[in-house]
């Protein structure tokens, strides 16, 4: 909303339309605000009586049929207009164009996994082309989540056991935040992703690159994966304990477990903790980490382990 929000509304046609409804309701609201508060404050001051002063003579007015009819009829018409305007734009929000690119979204505590039509997957990052409508077809692997693109003024809950959808047609290149808006437990507020809108050439180059993966070193690849898979939402790199223990200096350290035993954090332990997080729970932390079975491939886990070794 120009003037209100930190973000502009030219990122999509829908955002501008939603802001139109917002502006309309704001103007109507301001009119009634000034009218009602104006009379309230004016009367309260105009007819005010001093403390301990005898009440002045007041008229015996008990009502007025035409006034009361007026303030039943006019507000009814006004809210009807607001409803209709809101409904018309909602229809656009809920009707994706037929040629929209379909991207599958699987939400789980506390990350989003995106699957492109060609089968490629990504965690907490989705790339789309400017001007191309995209339809997110969403389901949850555990509890209810939400997917909210504040810049695009759209959100939708993500349910286990059924599909919901949401569509956008981004008109501006840029990075846009995605928030989870349905409370889903400890990591709810760190369940965030990003939608990267690229121009035609960059998008094409990126697709080619993905098809022919650049030769990154194992640790560099691991670093990227750690960032993009949502690990850092719960595991810090600087030694502070967040939802989960820190990764700093983890490799080779002796870890005290919740059952009183302890274990040395070697490759096997880290691999197991990624695939079966509750098998060896670290002392003092809740059993809340989701499994990454099926999310990360074997070679991804190898890269992540290589990266963790370098975090000292």
């Amino acid at each position, binding site marked *: 909303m120009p003037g209100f929000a930190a973000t502009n509304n030219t990122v999509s046609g829908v955002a501008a339309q939603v802001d139109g409804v917002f502006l309309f309701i704001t103007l109507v609201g301001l009119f009634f605000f000034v009218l009602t508060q104006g009379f309230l404050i004016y009367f309260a001051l105009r007819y005010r009586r001093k403390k301990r002063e005898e009440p002045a003579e007041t008229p*015996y007015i008990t009502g007025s049929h035409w006034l009361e009819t007026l303030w039943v009829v006019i507000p009814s018409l006004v809210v009807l207009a607001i409803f209709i305007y809101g409904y018309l734009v909602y229809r656009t929000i809920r009707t994706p164009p037929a040629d929209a690119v379909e991207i599958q979204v699987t939400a789980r505590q506390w990350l989003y996994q995106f699957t492109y039509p060609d089968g490629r997957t990504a965690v907490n990052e989705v790339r789309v082309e400017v001007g191309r409508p995209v339809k997110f077809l969403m389901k949850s692997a555990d509890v209810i989540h939400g997917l909210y693109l504040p810049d695009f003024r759209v959100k939708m809950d993500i349910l286990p056991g059924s599909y919901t959808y949401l569509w956008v047609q981004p008109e501006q290149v840029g990075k846009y935040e995605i928030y989870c808006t349905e409370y889903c437990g400890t990591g709810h507020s760190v369940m965030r992703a990003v939608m990267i809108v690229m121009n035609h050439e960059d998008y094409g180059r990126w697709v080619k690159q993905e098809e022919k993966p650049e030769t990154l070193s194992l640790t560099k690849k691991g670093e990227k994966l750690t960032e993009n898979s949502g690990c850092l939402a719960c595991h810090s790199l600087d030694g502070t304990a967040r939802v989960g223990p820190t990764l700093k200096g983890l490799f080779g350290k002796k870890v005290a477990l919740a059952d009183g035993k302890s274990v040395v954090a070697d490759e096997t332990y880290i691999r197991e903790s990624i695939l079966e997080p509750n098998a060896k729970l670290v002392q003092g932390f809740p059993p809340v980490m989701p499994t990454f079975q099926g999310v990360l491939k074997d070679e991804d886990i190898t890269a992540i382990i290589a990266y963790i070794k370098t975090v000292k």
Partner: protein
Amino acid sequence: MPDDIAPSPPADRGYLTEKGFLSWACTLDHKRIGLLYLGTTLLFFLVGGVFALLLRMKLMYPGEELFSNKAYNVFFTLHGIMMIFLFIIPAIPSALGNFLIPLMIGARDVAFPRLNIFSYWIFLAGIIVILASLASPLDTGWTFYTPYSATTGAAVTVLSFGIFLVGMSSILTGLNFIVTIHRLRAPGLTWFRLPLFIWSMYATSIIQVLATPVVGITFLLLAAERIFGVGFFDPAKGGDPLLFQHFFWFYSHPVVYVMILPAMGIVSEILPVFARKPIFGYKGIAYSSLAIAFIGFLVWGHHMFVSGMSDVAGIIFSFLTFFVAVPTGVKVFNWIATLYRGSISLDAPMLYSLTFIFLFIIGGLTGPFLGALATNVHLHDTYFVVAHFHYTMMGGTVIGLFAGLHYWFPKMFGRMYSERRALTAWLLIFFGFNITFFSMFILGVQGMPRRWAEYPERFQPLHIASTAGSWFLALGTVLMFWNLFRSLFRGGPAQPDPWGSKTLEWRTGSPPPTHNFAEIPTVTEWPYGFGKKEKERE
């Protein structure tokens, strides 16, 4: 009003004469039961408020500062549970309703005094069970959405039974009031001579009796899902998580009118007295309470526009939702018209009533943003919603309760409070409230989701403003309670009718005798006959 201080107690302590634990625990007197509810609910208001302050403290920082995210989630859950189930639902109906209904209709007690104290005991039992469940870190939010609430390790099952008991108490109280209002009105007190507070309590009681069983059943189903794994709400077993939301909001939407209607009743009593004018459009205000109670049952789906419910259902619910605005608007317009050409004295009860109208208008006018489908999609589950319901529930109901407490305090305890301190407290509350919650409207429009322990840094300045506001709000509230508490022991004696009111509760002593009236009064006119008719003036 005499400002302070007459340490010698007023001569006749009326219903407060008897002392000792049993005289309270086993009392059948509706006034004492009312005070028991008042003390209990206000205690939880203060505890819930402490949690609110902790939440605001943490939100000054965008990261995981002060305490962990898990603790934050537990605190906002406790804040919600205590404020909703243990404070705002029972506060006005059970506390002020109990104290005032028999007095206002010229009765000696409610229809079923034993059921009345039994309701309080169940309420207390429910509180104990709820507190027991809080031994586990309950982190579901007060809305308990499945599947999260069905799978979390916290003691949701125990809590379910606690809420079941509290709900039972609510149903019995509502039933008691309906029968009382029907059967025990003083001679001559016809329906259209009833004080508007009674009308609002009547509408409230109907909602309590009809809607509360649904939340009771919902929590039993949730308990069955957790204990026996039945799977009403589990898609893997053929259930549906949306079913829980429908059940939950079928109760929890109407119940917001259980919260706001009695406060509207309070304001409708106070305005005519302090403006020395008849209430404008009596029937409009009375019928609009019933209309709100009725329409309120048909709009629960507006909490679920982005839940995955069918779009068609959303469109119908949006349409119906807008028509709650009409009877609500009628009340606001009628209140303002009551002030016209009045002789207005801005004592504490009136000041709080005007504040109620001021804040409720803001709460009301921000409703259409959420009722309209297109803007709801953007604003749902953001701080806009948090601001909106705090403007209606805190700015509305709680401020209305404060108005009522100041208005009826002399009647309840036979003592006056310090007006000067009441004004200072009001000033702090008014500014603190608006700083705290108006910031949240802006945060919501900018896209800040609710129930977030951490947030992107761009939201920080407004969060800091909101937190600073919460300190003023807290300071004012503490001062207000301190003023009233102190006046319990040190306030000057109150006259039977210190404000020049015309409703029946002022036609007996302050505090009233146990049996309310020496002789049951006969009513000959409505209670708002202030001002002079044109003919008389000539």
